[in-house]
């Protein structure tokens, strides 16, 4: 099976990238191809990168509280270009009720602080395998 391609992105003005880099390294160690966008990305930059790279997953790391604006914007942009099939996941400082709202809006599972990276890796693997089984 080909490697899973993941875009790890830091939307917004928040500059704390330790979490995003730890996740990127963990996904690489789990055999995935990870494209890291760098800091201070607008939703437009993230969607463009996701589509050009034809990734399977977009992982967003937000600690600034701007998730209710930025994450839906990314979802909309992906949908506008016909790529609502891309899994949008992520985490950071997102209260439980906002996670519920975002998941209802169309993201995959979102993860809070302290989540072991192995859990994220397992989630992506399971999602990918289920999708491959569906389209096979």
């Amino acid at each position, binding site marked *: 099976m080909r490697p899973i391609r993941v875009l790890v992105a830091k939307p917004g003005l928040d500059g704390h990238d330790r979490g995003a880099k730890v996740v990127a390294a963990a996904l690489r160690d789990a055999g995935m*191809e990870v494209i890291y966008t760098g800091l201070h990305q607008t939703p437009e930059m993230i969607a463009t990168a996701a589509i050009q790279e034809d990734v399977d997953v977009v992982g967003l790391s937000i600690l600034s509280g701007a998730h209710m604006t930025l994450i839906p914007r990314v979802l909309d942009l992906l949908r506008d270009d016909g790529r609502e099939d891309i899994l949008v996941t992520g985490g950071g400082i997102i209260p439980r009720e906002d996670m519920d709202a975002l998941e209802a809006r169309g993201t995959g599972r979102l993860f809070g602080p302290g989540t072991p990276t192995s859990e994220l890796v397992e989630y992506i693997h399971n999602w990918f395998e289920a999708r491959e089984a569906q389209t096979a």
Partner: protein
Amino acid sequence: MPQSFDALIADFEAGKMAALARAISIVENHRTGYDELMTRLHPRIGRAQRLGMTGPPGAGKSTITNLIVQSLRRDNLRVGVVAVDPSSPFTGGALLGDRVRMEAVALDPGVYIRSMATRGSLGGLSARTAEVADVLDAFGFDRIIIETVGVGQTELDIARTADTTVVVLVPESGDSIQTLKAGVMEIADIFVVNKGDRPGADRLRNDIELMLGLRRGATSANIPAHHGIPLKTFNPIRIARDAARSENPEEWLPAVLGTIASKGEGIDLLLAAVDRHFRYLQTSGGLKGRRRNRLKNQVTEVVAERLRARLWEDPDTITWLDTQLDLMEAGTATPFSVADELLSRSGPLLTGVKP
């Protein structure tokens, strides 16, 4: 969501970026239908100029590529970039970090960036990269830049799929001519010594020119070998520089340039040298030669791929081969006789025509 091919091609021809991305994925992974896709794109391939950028990690290739792209965009040229990074041999994963260095052009609709991992293929990577470049070519990009890291054999092969290959070096990574891998000197059409403001940059440039000049000087019939060299008139560096600047060489001697990418310096001269090289390729017939080589290589790849799929994935062949093992052990057959028999049995299999 799987799309029908017609819909995909229609979107592709309409210039939709998502369709281009999808097409590249099909080609990169040799998914079902990839050969049909490539066949349909074939007539559109051949317009773009392909530039290869290679060199050791930390040399500043991505920074230079970023600047090149910005300059090309100012001339209204559309640019596709393929950035290749190594996969981990242990985990199979990869951190593809070239895109992040090209943020300045991230939202420019005239620029497309695709990150690829080497995926540990023993050969085959350069073929895949060439095919991805073909897709970008068919889409209509004027320039395609293929950026790879390192100067290993795979990277050298990738560079060969370009029309012009630029090798970027830096003084502080301990590069000296002696430590460069064999093959680098041969594949470079242009050398760039980046971080020109660091100590050792000038010396590295001189060393490269010396080597090139010596090579050119040594092949020149007029210069006597060994003790007979008239040192006063034999100036390898001069030979190198003159040859590199010549507009109508019979043979291309690689230009040796300096840049300070962090300050944006030297990029214009680099692009001028690339253009000069391309003109040389056109007038000397070299361009046609390279492209024909690419096509030939592609045929070889496809044949090997089909052979593998048709022969080695055929259960009957595998079964038959197993029956030969006892004979080989007993000595009544050898691997050579078995191979010959396999080939003569496999005619219909190989042609894909059922008996």
